[in-house]
């Protein structure tokens, strides 16, 4: 099962490599990974999506918690949550394709953020499966480059992950 684990950790050099190292060392999977400092600059927020059964996920969270740099963590998929990913995608846009791509971007509520005579650069946000759907709609033939941020997530309602 796909899980989103959100980690609050010390914003220290080496902290990220410890988290990433843990995953490779113990044979856990990283699907996506994002990390950046929070409003409190001593803390970083890291979101990792991984795949595993309940036993594996329990081991992942326990081992993450054991890392000295990890302050707190939550498995967002255990409760109601919102997830978003940002994608920048460069596609061929010439001739008849140009209008078709534009329509597709509108349907997916994306924005064209850069234009040349033959190329559109599109920004699109949403849950990962929405981004997958967009990539599929545009089709491999038109795609020149895809950059995805990886998943960021947050709990719904009043639940917060903070100190």
């Amino acid at each position, binding site marked *: 099962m796909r899980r989103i684990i959100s980690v609050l950790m010390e914003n220290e050099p080496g902290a990220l490599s410890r988290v990433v190292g843990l995953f490779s060392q113990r044979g856990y999977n990283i699907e996506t990974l994002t990390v950046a400092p929070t409003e409190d600059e001593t803390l970083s927020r890291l979101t990792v999506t991984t795949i595993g059964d309940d036993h594996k996920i329990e081991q992942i969270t326990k081992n993450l*918690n054991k890392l000295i740099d990890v*302050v707190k963590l939550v498995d967002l998929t255990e409760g109601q949550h919102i997830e978003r990913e940002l994608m920048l995608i460069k596609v061929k846009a010439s001739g008849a394709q140009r209008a078709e791509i534009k329509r597709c971007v509108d349907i997916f509520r994306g924005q064209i953020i850069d234009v040349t005579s033959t190329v559109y650069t599109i920004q699109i946000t949403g849950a990962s499966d929405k981004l997958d759907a967009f990539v599929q709609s545009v089709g491999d033939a038109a795609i020149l480059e895809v950059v995805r941020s990886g998943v960021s997530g947050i709990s719904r309602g009043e639940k917060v992950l903070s100190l």
Partner: protein
Amino acid sequence: MLSGGDMLIRSLQEEGVDLIFGYPGGAALHIYDAIFRQDKVKHILVRHEQSATHAADGYSRATGRVGTVLVTSGPGATNAITGIATAHMDSIPMVVISGQVATDKIGEDAFQETDMVGVSRPIVKHSFMVKHASEIPEIIKKAYHIASTGRPGPVVVDVPKNTVDPMETFPFEYPKKLKIRSYTPAAKGHSGQIKKAVSMLLKAKRPMIYAGGGVIQGEASRLLTELAQTLNYPVTNTLMGLGAYPGNDKQFLGMLGMHGTFEANTAMHHCDLILAVGARFDDRVTNTTSKFCPNAKIIHIDIDPASISKTITADVPIVGSVDSVLSEMLDLLKEAKDTPDEAALSDWWKQISEWRERHGLYTQPRYNTGGDMIMPQDVIKTLYEVTNGDAIVASDVGQHQMFAAQYYPFKSPRQWINSGGLGTMGFGLPAAMGAAFAFRDKDIVCVTGEGSIQMCIQELSTLTQYGLPVKIICLNNQALGMVKQWQDMVYDSRYSEIHYEDSLPDFVKLMEAYGHVGIRVNKKEELREKMEECFAMKDRVVFMDVYVDPTEHVYPMLVAPGGSMRDMWLSKTERT
């Protein structure tokens, strides 16, 4: 005002460090100069950085204190890696201070530069890189705190040369208190879970207490013994846990696992309740996990939540320090209205006695005693008798290690020092050396083989320098015995790369070259006399080169792969 180097050594003094095991080199020279200018912390010069870590490890296992290591950058640091990994696998508290090239050189492939924090990352509990001299006191305080609390482990402190520059001085103040917001090791177990565990314990008909190294690390041996004796339940220890429960007690079934006793492994398989204390259901214990103890409910006490339900799912997990949990259990048992089911327990003990009689290691010899060759088991038994079972025994890795674990019943914790998790050949001699620094008045023994001893043999010179009268008992079978055993059993005796008998050194002459005493024993009838002679030389290093039956195997041995704990080879031809 102190320089970074002086602050580092002052901080070690503040932590009560009395010994550092180390080896100097370029990037560590400022620190070594700071050591020279004081006399509170004593530095022990080993002959290889691997030995520095093993010696600090042996010192820690024997005393319960944090072992301290100092090495230089590059090869000094990488040589320490094996010892750090050894300590990590067995949860031994250790602080390893490594020199590093100056901060402005880091990343430039400077002379003797290695990314020590990166290289050691998977085998440390935590690591620090000093960025500025002023951070040193706090980092040292944190390092010792992290190494010694919770589930202990090694901590690396990487110290770039410029941060310990003698020309730059700063005010020194050692922090009194410490707060690490992201590190709060569990202390007490969950009371509800402990209550539940006690009521399950009292209802059990075929209980087993399975105790590991955590009982020793957690200083809970006395409590474990009290609990087991209050209940009159059978106890087995892991390889790491030997000594946690008195090895000669009638409730002790011996070690369990790969080379555990018939009675311990069989009782585990048939029990209906396991009280696991500070043990981690390691693969050398469980054999095939799907066949592990099919009828048992499991109570698992461990300070590390990640150890619980990792390989075997616990029915009642209790995260907490073993001493606090066991003492809470004892309190509950004293108040409890129920008592153990005496009739069931008596049947269970009857069954266990029957197993003991049938194949137990201690009821009668389970090896050939009629031949001319010296049997390795007899060497350990003789060692036990000659040392009255009071020696601190450090072991290397291989058949001799298993014979020592089987035939030297350890009376108390911290008496048995061995590399259980990583299985590091070469560990024995430097570990014995570390223990010898802590206990000048005890017999310190290194049980080894002619293979293992050659992996850190250079420490014979360190023993000379510091006058440490370690007794080395070498079970010489002229081959890599444990590998040979596997090649006999699994590879049709195709002996691939295990022989070197024509090129073995003359150990007696070698000992003389180092200023020690060597005794060769190859006659059965001389074994005891020579062993007594060896231990009579109180202030000398003595190496007993005992030629043992090279064909002997260690039994019992779990049948793997695919076997359960009751599936064992009992001899070359007999299995359960």
